């Protein structure tokens, strides 16, 4: 054995680690022949004894007893609280979720109901119009509806209230934007098809700002021809319904035909 080989095993030799008997014998024999390696061996043994002394010195060391008390307390808490808490949490979470879902549903329904009520109240709260009605239509005109402001007939009132705007669009050859609520009222209540309002004489859009009133009348079908609407000759003697728009001045401002 040479010093290089000895160097690799000297620490294990000094620590009395298990090794092959031949190698151990060779290493020990080498220390008798080489003073340096003998010194290395001595240093390593001194180090081992110093470490052993340190081990012996610290052998009685242990953690303070209060740590065990704290840990036992933590152990008890972990084993008592955790299962109960988990179960309680899971139930609580379940019920909270259910309540939240119920609240959302109730709030949603309430919102829908409030919106519907709001629409109905808007319609019902329109003040009754008390304008004088002038029946200065042409000869043979038969007024059919004269109480358009009746509170019970809200859809009709709604219709009458919006007519001036409709005629305004008609008078200016503009495409009138379709309002959903009006369309609904038209489709579900009146179920009628009507032409746009056609102006009677000269008027301006400003004349409609003060509102007005619509009166349903029946006219001879021949009256259609006066407004450039084609007339079926076979039904020439029949009568046709029309809505006449009266302004606040009591004069007829526009007319539309209804089927």
């Amino acid at each position, binding site marked *: 054995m040479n010093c290089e080989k000895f160097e690799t095993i000297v*620490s294990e030799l000094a620590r009395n680690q298990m090794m092959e008997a031949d190698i151990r014998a060779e290493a020990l024999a080498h220390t008798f022949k080489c003073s340096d390696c003998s010194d290395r061996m001595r240093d390593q043994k001194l180090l081992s004894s*110093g470490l052993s002394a340190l081990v012996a010195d610290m052998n009685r*060391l242990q*953690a303070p007893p209060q740590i065990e008390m704290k840990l036992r307390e933590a*152990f008890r808490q972990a084993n008592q609280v955790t299962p109960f808490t988990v179960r309680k949490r899971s139930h609580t979470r379940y019920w909270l979720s259910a309540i939240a879902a119920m609240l959302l549903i109730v709030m949603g329904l309430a919102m829908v109901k409030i919106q519907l009520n709001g629409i109905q109240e808007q319609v019902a709260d329109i003040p009754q119009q008390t304008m004088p009605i002038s029946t200065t239509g042409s000869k043979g005109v038969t007024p059919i509806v004269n109480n358009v402001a009746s509170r019970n007939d809200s859809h009709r009132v709604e219709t009458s209230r919006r007519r001036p705007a409709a005629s305004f669009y008609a008078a200016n050859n503009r495409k009138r934007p379709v309002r959903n609520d009006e369309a609904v009222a038209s489709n579900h209540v009146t179920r009628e098809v009507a032409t746009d309002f056609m102006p009677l004489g000269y008027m301006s859009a400003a004349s409609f700002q003060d509102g007005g009133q619509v009166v349903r009348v029946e006219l001879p079908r021949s009256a259609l021809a006066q407004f450039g609407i084609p007339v079926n000759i076979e039904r020439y003697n029949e009568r046709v319904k029309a809505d006449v728009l009266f302004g606040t001045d009591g004069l007829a401002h526009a007319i539309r035909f209804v089927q």
Partner: protein
Amino acid sequence: MRPLSELSDAELLRSMREGDEEAFGALYQRRQAGVFRFAWQMSGSHALAEDVTQEVFLFLIRDGHVFDAEKGSVSAFLMGVARNYVLRKLRGERAMISLGEDSEDDFSADLADPELSPLDDLTRTETIENVRKAVLTLPEKYREVVVLCELQELNYKETAEILECAIGTVRSRLHRGRALLLEKLRPARPETEDATELKSAGCFA
């Protein structure tokens, strides 16, 4: 039913996980000293050793299920956890104690052997203190091997399990660690210049 003292660490851990506080107490009593000493030897700080011991066993209470018997013993598992906590604290807080301000952590005086004469005791205490300081100044990777193999007196296999490395790595680190310790302790011994030169030259007989 067998007494707790006859149960293995793994059996105690299983009982502990089923809520047996006495099993936990038995396991703690069996392993706390090793964990505490390891933390103290690695850090030189009594307070840190206490904290680490507490945290290791709290970890065992909370996450004892992560122990895998196929990977090693409960002891090695606890030492591995302790090692992680110690290294984290040392790296995070730079808590390596100042060697000159270590009077409150000096246990040697408290544990003096009553059978030794005052002079012997003084020499012995000085030697122990020198070795302890030298160990604390080793780089971490050598220190932990020296602590586990020399101070905790674990074999290479157990140390390799704790450090999660190969046995050959443990051997080489221990060899290097001891060499470093000798270098640190050597100035304490009188040595001639010639002897130093001879050692460095070596021989190839």
